[in-house]
């Protein structure tokens, strides 16, 4: 079965897929270009390299050292965040920043400079990376940190795997008092209410995020705030996930099912305050493995953009465009980014508001909607998240990532990806 990205959009396979199991060994000598492939959780084409080589990095899954006092962990780059949690949560440590799935490699988390519900206080994942080793196709190895080879560090964090291969990385874990999250849920109607709730919650809570129903005539949603709680036995780890075993020929997610889901989700009885395990709080979708198969053989797109604070008004336009298109998504996540600078030249987060939406691939109508949304995001000075993207126009990417020219000289001449070929040339 050819490797795919999480969106399962049809693509041409790689011609070769060797494994790397030893961090000291050289990169394979290949015809054409090379790209590291971790656990395939990015949505679009940043992890694909059609007609060339994908280098599997899940074989680099060893821990190297851990300091029980400071929480500094050094491990190989193919270790999954879930494996870090399994080993260190029972000892009272947690990831400083965690994306919405724990099934990503630590190398992938750095290459996409992922963010979490605590961005307003903690910044991106890259803010907690102390150093890593970067192996280039010329055989050179560099230790990169904010202080040593700092330009290589800034190029590689958020660098989408184009600057070479990270073999090992060092990150700082944080102490938690228990496995519980004290979570508060509040229903809101309209964006003004969201922004009011959000301003209040960000001052008080470590984690904030909102789910919104963008199919409703007036945007409505549920605002969620959370903090680590002293409750929760450290040995209690998430139960084995269910598996969605096959890909149906057609998407099970469409206008009808999304509307029905949103109605039930919004109206469900909602405890105002409760302590829940961290897994359903951070990783609600990890409970069903391969949930992406729900979207059928044509796959799906995720569209995630950020708008600068000054352009909030555009959010209304975007939501209206989606609602009128009738192609809404049942998973829409709204979050504000704080002012902590992202460490990477191509990091996605900037101070502002970000919205992530899933759309079944319906071909031309879906792409037309995206073009319309792009125009609004672009005119507002916003940008799209490369880790989610499969179709943005190269011009838009180059205009919206102002440090791109600074980044390009750091690209390894042997490394490439479908994304890079699509937007850089």
């Amino acid at each position: 079965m050819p490797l795919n990205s999480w969106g399962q959009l049809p693509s041409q396979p790689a011609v070769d897929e060797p494994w790397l199991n030893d961090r000291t060994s050289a990169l394979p000598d290949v015809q054409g270009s090379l790209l590291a492939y971790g656990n395939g959780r990015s949505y679009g084409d940043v992890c694909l390299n059609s007609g060339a080589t994908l280098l599997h990095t899940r074989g680099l899954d060893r821990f190297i050292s851990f300091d029980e006092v400071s929480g500094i962990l050094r491990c190989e780059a193919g270790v999954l965040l879930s494996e870090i949690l399994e080993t260190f949560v029972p000892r009272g440590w947690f990831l400083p920043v965690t994306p919405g799935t724990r099934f990503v490699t630590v190398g992938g988390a750095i290459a996409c400079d992922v963010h979490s519900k605590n961005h307003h206080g903690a910044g991106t994942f890259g803010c907690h990376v102390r150093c890593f080793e970067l192996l280039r196709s010329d055989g050179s190895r560099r230790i990169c940190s904010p202080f040593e080879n700092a330009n290589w560090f800034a190029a590689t964090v958020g660098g989408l795997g184009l600057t070479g291969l990270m073999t090992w990385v060092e990150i700082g874990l944080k102490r938690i008092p228990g496995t519980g999250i004290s979570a508060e849920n509040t229903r809101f109607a309209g964006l003004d209410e969201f922004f009011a709730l959000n301003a209040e919650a960000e001052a008080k809570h470590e984690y904030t995020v909102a789910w919104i129903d963008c199919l409703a005539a007036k945007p409505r949603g549920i605002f969620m705030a959370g903090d680590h709680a002293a409750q929760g036995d450290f040995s209690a780890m998430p139960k084995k996930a269910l598996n969605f075993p096959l890909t149906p020929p057609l998407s099970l997610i469409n206008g009808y099912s999304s509307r029905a889901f949103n109605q039930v989700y919004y109206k469900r009885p909602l405890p105002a305050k409760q302590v829940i395990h961290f897994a359903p709080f951070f990783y609600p979708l990890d409970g069903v493995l391969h949930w992406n198969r729900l979207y059928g053989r044509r796959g799906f797109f995720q569209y995630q953009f950020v708008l600068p604070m000054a352009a909030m008004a555009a959010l209304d336009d975007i939501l209206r465009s989606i609602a009128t298109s009738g192609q809404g998504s049942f998973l829409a996540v709204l979050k504000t980014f704080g002012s902590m600078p992202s460490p990477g030249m191509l990091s996605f987060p900037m101070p502002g508001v970000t919205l992530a939406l899933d759309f079944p691939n319906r071909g031309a109508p879906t792409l037309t909607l995206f073009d319309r949304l792009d125009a609004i995001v672009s005119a507002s000075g916003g940008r799209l998240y490369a880790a989610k993207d499969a179709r943005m126009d190269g011009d838009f990417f180059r205009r919206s990532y102002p440090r791109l020219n600074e980044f390009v000289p750091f690209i390894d001449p042997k490394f490439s990806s479908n994304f890079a070929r699509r937007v850089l040339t």
Partner: protein
Amino acid sequence: MQKVLIIGATSAIAEATARLWAARGATLFLVGRRPERLEVIASDLRVRGAVSVSCFTMDACNIAAHTAMIEAVDASMGELDIALIAHGSLPDQKACESSVELTLNEMNTNGLSVIALLTQLGNRFAAQGKGSLAVISSVAGDRGRQSNYVYGAAKGMVSLFLQGLRNRLAKLGVQVLTIKPGFVDTPMTVAFKKGALWAKPEVIAQGIVWAIDKKRDVVYLPGFWWLIMTIIRHIPERVFKKLSL
């Protein structure tokens, strides 16, 4: 706290199994050919919770080195709770058919070296009167097939030897476990196309730890291989010889 000896510790199944024991806070003694790989694995196991990890460089085919290895285990850990023998290679059957030397080498790696180790370790466990001696054999040892009978014959020899050893040591309170994995997705099998019958080393590792905890005698991993091999073993030879398995 379990004290565990692993021979062939850099193999994918052995490494995955060692991780489970490390998480329980075991003391581990790793034996393998490549010292730098052993050190990488040892560091990982320490972070995962192993109380201590020692490494010993040895080629299991060098039978003269076995005694020194067992003495080093003695000096390092004293009595053993578990010994897992996991080293092996997957021969190129076609190449073996035209080379006596290659065939005998493979027999040595997958069969005789294991029997040499079992002879010494068996006596050691007999003297202890407790503990678990676990060996990775293979479903391939259950019946000779044209596609890999050199490997199959070596593993079959190991399985039969273990059966006798179990018969002898059971009375002394020692568990002898024959582990028969089916197709496992490891660097040893990287050249094969993978299908529904293939299992990850982590799955095999869980089965090994479970079978040792439960004091089992023979375990097929994953369990469905018991059914497959029962059927394969019962096909009459006059039919079987015409199949291309």
